[in-house]
């Protein structure tokens, strides 16, 4: 055992305490950095050197403290749980916000919705029936009919525009997903090099975790860790990122709602065009669910189904009114005239037009001032299978779908909050704890310095004051 070994022991203690203080500083500095995971210095005691020979002491103490590394106190299971939860909440958020926008365009119940226009339309027929042949009520009827047709067309266009903006938003999300994937692949490469050289890569791992969370929020997926420090990010069972290799995805399909039936919007691997990525969550999956084409049974994409219902409504309205209207005669005593017409090139809701232009081309009855046809048309509004009931079913259907999407979204949000809370609870920096550590390291440093002084004084006695007895 060397005479000076005590000094070295104290020195290792100084180094360890300083390292500890540095890490405390790093933790406090990043206490509010998003995604930062707290770190700790791992130390271990150095044992005594094995000695042989006649002059060795029987017992010897250890050689001080060794700094083994700086550990990142993350928990991969909590991270995975937070990612799964945020995939689900991303999916329901996208659906819920789309449904809220959609139901907002309905303006029901209230005085500005289609139902109010319909009621005014039926009332105008009744008034015209009471005053058959008069230009004033006929003009009122025509303006109500045109307003109703315009409102139906506007409603349809709003759905169409929402579809287009939803597609653009999903496109933006796909770009964000590709960006995140590219950065993860890049970080994988740097982390692998750093880990191979033995240095800690904690901060880069934190950054990569943030990106992985972004991927999960956008497209669900799972993260698998490899031995060399890299991760594999899988979406729909296939690798978006594998080591340093990044596979691009892209959004394909129609840019217009009208073409979505023939060419549905889907997420594809750039390297394998034509096969859709089977997403298991995330806001892209939510967006794609909203963008899905109508399937004829009312369970397709919310927007396309709403547009389809607008068409059904317009067709029903025209068919029911025309059936009665064409039985009556107009001013020139001819029958078979339609009240509503369609522009064949457009969807029914957009192409709905009013055929008559004045009182002479509206049929109110069987001749003269007869108002029986007008009365029968006005009665459509209170019939069981009226266009009103088609509209009412659509409004309450969209309302129910929006309500359930909202509920799912709040449940998913709650799950996410719990998962993120658990993740934060494990990984976030606690200032009180860091203060305690700071005190500990500070005192350890002071103690080590004191030990060093003591050893120094001891050596001073040995070197400078030995053999001076009796001088």
């Amino acid at each position, binding site marked *: 055992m060397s005479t000076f070994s005590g000094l070295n022991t104290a020195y290792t203690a100084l180094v360890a305490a300083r390292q500890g203080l540095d890490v405390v500083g790093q933790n406090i500095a990043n*206490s*509010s950095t998003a995604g930062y995971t707290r770190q700790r210095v791992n130390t271990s005691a150095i044992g005594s050197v094995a000695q042989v020979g006649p002059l060795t002491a029987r017992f010897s103490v250890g050689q001080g403290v060794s700094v083994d590394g700086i550990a990142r106190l993350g928990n991969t299971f909590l991270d995975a749980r937070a990612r799964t939860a945020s995939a689900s909440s991303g999916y329901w958020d996208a659906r819920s916000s789309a*449904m*809220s926008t959609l*139901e*907002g365009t*309905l303006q*029901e*119940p209230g005085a500005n919705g289609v*139902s109010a226009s319909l*009621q*005014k339309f*039926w*009332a105008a027929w*009744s*008034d015209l*029936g*009471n*005053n058959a*042949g*008069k230009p004033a009520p006929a003009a009122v009827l025509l303006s109500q009919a045109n307003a109703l047709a315009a409102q139906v067309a506007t409603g349809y266009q709003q759905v169409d525009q929402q579809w287009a903006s939803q597609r653009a938003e999903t496109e933006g999300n796909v770009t964000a997903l590709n960006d995140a994937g590219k950065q993860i692949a890049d970080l994988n490469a740097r982390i692998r090099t750093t880990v191979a050289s033995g240095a800690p890569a904690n901060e880069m791992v934190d950054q990569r975790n943030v990106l992985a969370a972004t991927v999960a929020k956008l497209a669900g997926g799972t993260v698998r860790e490899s031995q060399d420090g890299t991760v594999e990010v899988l979406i729909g069972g296939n690798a978006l990122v594998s080591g340093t290799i990044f596979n691009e995805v892209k959004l394909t399909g129609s840019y217009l709602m009208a073409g979505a039936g023939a060419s549905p919007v889907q997420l594809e691997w750039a390297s394998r065009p034509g096969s859709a990525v089977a997403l298991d969550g995330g806001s892209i999956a939510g967006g794609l669910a909203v963008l899905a084409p109508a399937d004829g049974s009312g369970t397709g994409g919310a927007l396309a189904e709403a547009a389809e219902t607008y068409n059904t409504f317009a067709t029903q309205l025209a068919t029911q009114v025309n059936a009665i209207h064409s039985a009556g005669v107009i001013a020139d005593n001819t029958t078979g005239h339609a009240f509503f017409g369609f522009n064949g090139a457009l969807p029914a809701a957009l192409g709905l037009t009013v055929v008559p232009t004045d009182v002479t081309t509206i049929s109110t*009855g*069987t*001749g*003269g*001032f007869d*108002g*029986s046809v007008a*009365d029968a048309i*006005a*009665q459509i*509004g*209170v019939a069981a299978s009226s266009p*009103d009931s088609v*509209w*009412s*079913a659509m*409004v*309450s*259907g*969209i*309302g*129910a779908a*929006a*309500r359930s999407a*909202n509920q799912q979204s709040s449940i998913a949000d709650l799950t996410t*909050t719990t998962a993120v*809370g*658990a993740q*934060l*609870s*494990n990984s*976030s*920096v*606690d*200032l*009180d*704890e860091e*203060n*305690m550590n700071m005190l500990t390291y500070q005192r350890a440093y002071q103690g080590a310095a004191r030990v060093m002084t003591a050893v120094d004084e001891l050596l001073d006695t040995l070197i400078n004051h030995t053999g001076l007895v009796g001088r």
Partner: protein
Amino acid sequence: MYTRITNQTINFSAQRNLQANKVLLDKIQEQGTSRQAINQPSDDPVGTAKALQVRNAQAANAQYGRNIDDGNGWVGTLDTTLTAATNIMNRIRDLTVQGANDGSMSTAAKSAIASELSSLKGELLTQANATYLGRSVFAGNTAAAVAFDPTTYAYNGDPTNVSTVQRRVDANTTVRVDADGAATFGVVNTANPAADTSVFTLIDNIVSDLNTGTNISARLTEIDQRMEAIRGQQAVTGTGQTMLDRASDAKNNRTVSLEAQRSSVEDVDLAKVILDLQTQQTTYQASLAITAKVLQPSLMDFLR
């Protein structure tokens, strides 16, 4: 399990709770200021469907109200017209009875009666061609300008009486608001004078009888028949009026009950909203105060 609490988790949950409280406040504020329980269909999809249905029924009911008002105009016009016609017929009968006294009447007196009868016929014709808002009340749905031709007395209305003027007073009922002119004032039949039931030809005949000196007492039966027809029509019109009145009562009752239904579905209970608001406000203030207290201190404040 021991959960590690850090400054960040406290911040995180404080933020979340404050946000949740604010969302609730906003919801109550929206309900309170709009006074509506349903602002979006998703607030209550079933209630929305019911609200739409009730509003539809309300609109239809309001329209029935307008129809009833219009019908009242028709029936009122008819009633006035028929009363006037009855009065005219009474006068005509009186004059006919007077003119039938052959012995005591001079030719001059008879011609005076004849000329008064002629002018009464004109008045009766005016009544028979009475209009409501430009439509002849005795001519059904025809587009003809007058119900009875002023010279030939021909009836221009629908002779077969297929197309009558009807007003819808509720979903299943219509009320006839015009009168059959042919039945009321009779029809001319120039080919077979014996089958001629027109009141106007009758008066013309009395006038010509008076002028030629024929005794007109035989005409009294015919006058009574015509008066009977007019009074009969008045009774029919009265029935129509009763139906309209009853429909109007029913419509008013429906207005009240439909409005109550609409209100129960769509409107908020203001007292409840205010109470909720107060509670929510207290909760929010408490959460603000507690958050402010909890977030402040750290060990740093106590280390010297």
